[in-house]
């Protein structure tokens, strides 16, 4: 994009504009996503509980309910307890939001539609999502309330624990794909739905459920929402928050849900690739025409968002179905079940890929992991990798297309 803009603008301005466009786009996703999902949650919970949910605001389905709520929250007084550590108290919601927001910059929404095409995107997203807990802990401590502190402590213990099985689960698709580049992983699962890693082998299928459990826990959703267990801790870490700051915590939570669902979609459900290779059939994906490619990506985006929304909806379904666990049950779930199962799945996947290199059913052999470095031909490889060089590491920000092309044609 920056290169495109550079034709019309000075270089510095072009980069700046490109960066801003990416940032704003992601922000829109985050904000809009939150609006939609809160509305969705109300409707889903309503239906589950045999009621209608919001129906009035904004017309027939109450679809402006969230906006109204948001306006209400904005107009509410921003309270701050006297015993609070004011600086940390004010900053904590933004820390949370930043963490989940930053995760989006490495998240591809379609083939190559990614803010920063990171080589270690999976790693990066998992790492950054782990930072969200900082906001919660700071909020819990800074509120100067014991309920908040207890909530924060639970959250810290829970998130740190669940990062272990989560990490192992995430490693399984990475192991199969041979790369941590999310774009590459997504591209590998193109074609039929049985190309999805979910169906790669029985272990990945098991691992996906573990992943989803752990993801639910690490974004602090029911039945793992111990940090805000209203029956014990009033409202947990955000007991003392109100108004805008409270709503920012909500935004962070919902955007995190989207991120983990989207990650699941990319890692296990083929990302932007639909269950049927429609774009392939239409010839859009393989076309050299940029416009065709663009259309294909639009379809992929719809696919991807649909999978992410499905994941989020599934989380809501779980939330309104299962009762909350006790804290010891939460930890037991992590340490006694999730971690061993994930480790078992990991070991199984390793053995499976060793026994059946390339998997049982992978028709598109093109996407088998490439040996990046052929030991006998180092020079050529190095030359190839430098040929597509951009100007600087910063160029990652907008060299997504190039990089992806490079991999694609390889």
């Amino acid at each position, binding site marked *: 994009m920056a290169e495109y803009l550079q034709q019309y603008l000075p270089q510095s301005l072009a980069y700046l504009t490109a960066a801003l466009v990416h940032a704003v786009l992601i922000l829109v996703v985050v904000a809009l996503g939150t609006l939609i999902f809160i509305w969705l949650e109300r409707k889903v919970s309503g239906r589950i509980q045999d009621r209608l949910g919001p129906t009035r605001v904004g017309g027939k389905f109450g679809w402006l309910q969230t906006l109204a709520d948001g306006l209400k929250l904005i107009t509410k007084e921003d309270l701050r307890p006297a015993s609070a550590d004011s600086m940390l108290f004010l900053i904590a919601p933004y820390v949370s939001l930043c963490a989940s927001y930053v995760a989006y910059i490495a998240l591809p929404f379609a083939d190559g539609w990614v803010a920063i095409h990171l080589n270690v995107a999976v*790693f*990066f997203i998992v790492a950054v999502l782990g*930072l969200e807990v900082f906001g919660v*802990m700071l909020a819990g401590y800074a509120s100067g309330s014991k309920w908040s502190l207890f909530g924060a402590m639970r959250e810290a213990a829970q998130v*740190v624990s669940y990062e272990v099985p989560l990490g192992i689960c995430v490693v399984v698709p990475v192991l199969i794909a041979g790369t941590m580049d999310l774009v590459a992983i997504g591209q590998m699962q193109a074609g039929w739905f049985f190309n999805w890693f979910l169906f790669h082998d029985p272990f990945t299928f098991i691992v996906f459920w573990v992943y989803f459990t752990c993801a639910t826990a690490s974004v602090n959703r029911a039945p793992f929402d111990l940090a805000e267990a209203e029956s014990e801790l009033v409202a947990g870490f955000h007991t003392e928050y109100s108004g805008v700051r409270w709503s920012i915590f909500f935004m962070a939570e919902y955007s995190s849900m989207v991120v983990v669902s989207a990650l699941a979609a990319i890692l296990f459900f083929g990302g932007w690739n639909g269950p049927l290779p429609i774009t392939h059939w239409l010839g859009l994906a393989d076309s050299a025409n940029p416009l065709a490619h663009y259309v294909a990506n639009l379809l992929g985006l719809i696919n991807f968002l649909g999978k992410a929304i499905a994941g989020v909806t599934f989380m809501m379904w779980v939330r309104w179905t299962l009762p909350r666990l006790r804290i010891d049950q939460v930890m037991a779930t992590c340490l006694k079940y999730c971690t061993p199962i994930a480790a078992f799945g990991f070991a199984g996947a390793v053995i499976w890929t060793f026994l059946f290199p390339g998997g049982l059913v992978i028709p598109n052999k093109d996407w088998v992991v490439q040996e990046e470095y052929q030991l006998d031909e180092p*020079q050529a490889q*190095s030359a190839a990798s430098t040929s597509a060089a951009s100007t*600087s590491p910063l160029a990652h920000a907008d060299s997504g297309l190039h990089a992806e092309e490079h991999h694609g044609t390889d």
Partner: protein
Amino acid sequence: MEPINWHSVFFLLFALVGCGFSVAVLLTSNVVRMAFYLVLALAATSGLFFLAGADFVGAMQIMIYVGGTLVLLIFGVMLTARGPFISMRTPAGEWILGAIIGGSLLVVLLSAATSVRAWRPVAVAEGEARPTATRLGMALLGARVDKLEEPDPTQREGMSGYLLPFEIVSVHLLVVLVGSAYLARPKKRAVGSTAETV
């Protein structure tokens, strides 16, 4: 006017944030704020790593350092953060002494950092960052693919990988996990009750 070097700009940004919050860590007496500043300083450092082309190390920094170590640290802070321990004052004399000694160390380090010509900035031909993750992984498994480019054959063949250190670190981590769990265990109350918990 020379074009702005964005690399430098972002370096300055991260460096200032990193150093600034390091100093803030030093100067704050509230331990929770210290932890928060440390998070920011380390996060900024990971930005520096990204800028230096070490994307895997940067991600690692965020993942382990910021996400793991510091969460642990804050966890510890919260466990021990009772009123009087949140901010413990250091006598002014020690501050002065520390400032003198630390200042001299800083002078020493800075003079060392700036005196070697080879370390001065050079106008490098901009090059695409090569992804490091795979190469690092190979190196950890004992294959130094990066050293294959070495013109010096002794260099090329003599460079072992990091398999042994990797294994050692793995075992070390395991031992540390067990050990810290053992160290931080609650005190046994009675002999009889342990049988039940086992």
